[in-house]
């Protein structure tokens, strides 16, 4: 089995998949802690459907570089959903559900009215579940992903103390002179970027899992914000790595394998937390 793994690692696309997988899972788990605590667990799901909708537009209009449309649209939606914190007209979960289902519906509608290939359900399945796109990454995409992940991680570390206080108590932070609007905006933009990146890895339906599971697992066992964040990042990276390796060896779909590993780890952590 080891020799089989080493054989596969000889291929650059396998190495790329591992690098990108680990980087994206790192970013998504860092943000996951804040999102889960702010009661925005479903934002990943909502925004990824928005990205799916935007993607169908690029497919229908045959744009060559779909990032140019998908990223800005997702960022705008993320900002609309998150920027005002808890003072929005339509409350968090309703707004997310509304945007997510309508983007999904319009995306599928567009694909059916203007079919670009004979196999619509195959196309939809690919975008929703990510299937193989992580195995077809080019070197340029890997570098782009690396730069963005590094930026997200650095921003998170530099603003760690602010992110903590804005998450814990937005009003107090605002009253002490922290520009909460700016930090909410920053979080929204980062989340949108991570989600668009993560679509390559697990597809739009499973992004939520990548964002919430490591954070939830960590919260079962650890009791301070720092330890939860670190544990969440470590867990997420290990799960993504294990998931990709298993999927290569067993020939299972990458996205769902990673999520399955995440769920398993969550179950184990829950048991550990109970025993304490």
């Amino acid at each position, binding site marked *: 089995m080891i020799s089989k793994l080493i054989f596969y690692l000889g291929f650059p696309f396998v190495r790329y998949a591992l690098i990108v997988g680990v980087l994206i899972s790192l970013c998504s788990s860092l943000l996951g802690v804040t999102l889960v605590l702010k009661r925005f667990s479903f934002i990943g799901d909502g925004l990824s459907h928005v990205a799916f909708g935007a993607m169908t537009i690029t497919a229908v209009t045959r744009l060559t570089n779909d990032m140019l449309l998908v990223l800005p649209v997702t960022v705008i939606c993320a900002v609309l959903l998150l920027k005002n914190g808890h003072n929005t007209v339509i409350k968090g979960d309703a707004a997310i559900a509304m945007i997510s289902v309508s983007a999904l519906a319009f995306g599928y509608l567009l694909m059916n009215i203007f079919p670009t290939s004979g196999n619509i359900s195959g196309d939809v399945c690919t975008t929703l579940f990510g299937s193989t796109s992580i195995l077809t990454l080019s070197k340029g995409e890997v570098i782009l992903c690396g730069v963005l992940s590094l930026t997200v991680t650095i921003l998170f570390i530099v603003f760690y103390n602010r992110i*903590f206080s804005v998450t814990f108590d937005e009003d107090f932070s605002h009253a002490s002179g922290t520009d909460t609007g700016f930090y909410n905006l920053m979080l929204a933009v980062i989340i949108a970027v991570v989600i668009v990146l993560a679509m390559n890895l697990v597809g739009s339906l499973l992004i939520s899992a990548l964002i919430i599971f490591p954070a939830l697992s960590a919260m079962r066992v650890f009791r301070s914000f720092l330890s*939860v964040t670190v544990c969440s990042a470590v867990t997420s990276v290990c799960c993504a790595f294990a998931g990709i390796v298993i999927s290569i060896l067993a020939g299972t779909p990458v996205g769902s394998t990673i999520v399955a590993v995440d769920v398993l780890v969550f179950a184990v952590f829950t048991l550990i937390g109970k025993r304490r």
Partner: protein
Amino acid sequence: MALITARNLSLGYDSHIIVKDLNFSLNGGDYLCIVGENGSGKTTLMKTLLHLIKPAAGEIITGDGLKKNEIGYLPQQSLIQRDFPASVWEIVLSGCQGRLGKKPFYSDEHKKLAEENIKKMGITDLRNKCYRDLSGGQQQRVLLARALCATQKLLLLDEPVSGLDPKVTAEMYSLIERLNKDGTAVIMISHDIMRAIRYASHILHIGSDVFFGTREEYITTKMGQNFLNREGGEQA
């Protein structure tokens, strides 16, 4: 010069004005209790003083060297905080965020300040405990320690004793009284009019009628007596 002065202040959201033409001022060491019926705008007033909401009209002037963000705020507990995985230390330290300026991390000086306030609130043994595992009274002490990290000059407390049992409530009041005696000015929203009368130096009653003055003056007004009888009667 007063620490904080409200001049012709009107409160409200959008075009809906709740309170009109408020005038009051607070000096260092004062203890002001804001009382009034539910929905009279007490929390709105507090959020306006904190610059979380823009006043509909009028202005808030800070003086006596008090900076705009030098206010220690003890909010009502939110749903998010109840099961938040954070240690007492992390939360108290976050009170220093106004002192960070442009720096990303807390300095030794900030940590010392947090340590002192933890000691002052008598929660040293809880330092590494998780916030969600604490009792209601302990959580309030943590949030009070955090507020003290923001400033020692002025504390704004939004119903600091709601949901606490009588013994812990009494402890909380004497804790706040001690802070006030040490020179911290206090503005507190309270439902407990009897205690407000007992501890406060000034009363601000808002609602259909507005009163601002010392405690002694308030007790002699008709409005104060009505409110006292009604609310006091309910509590007895």
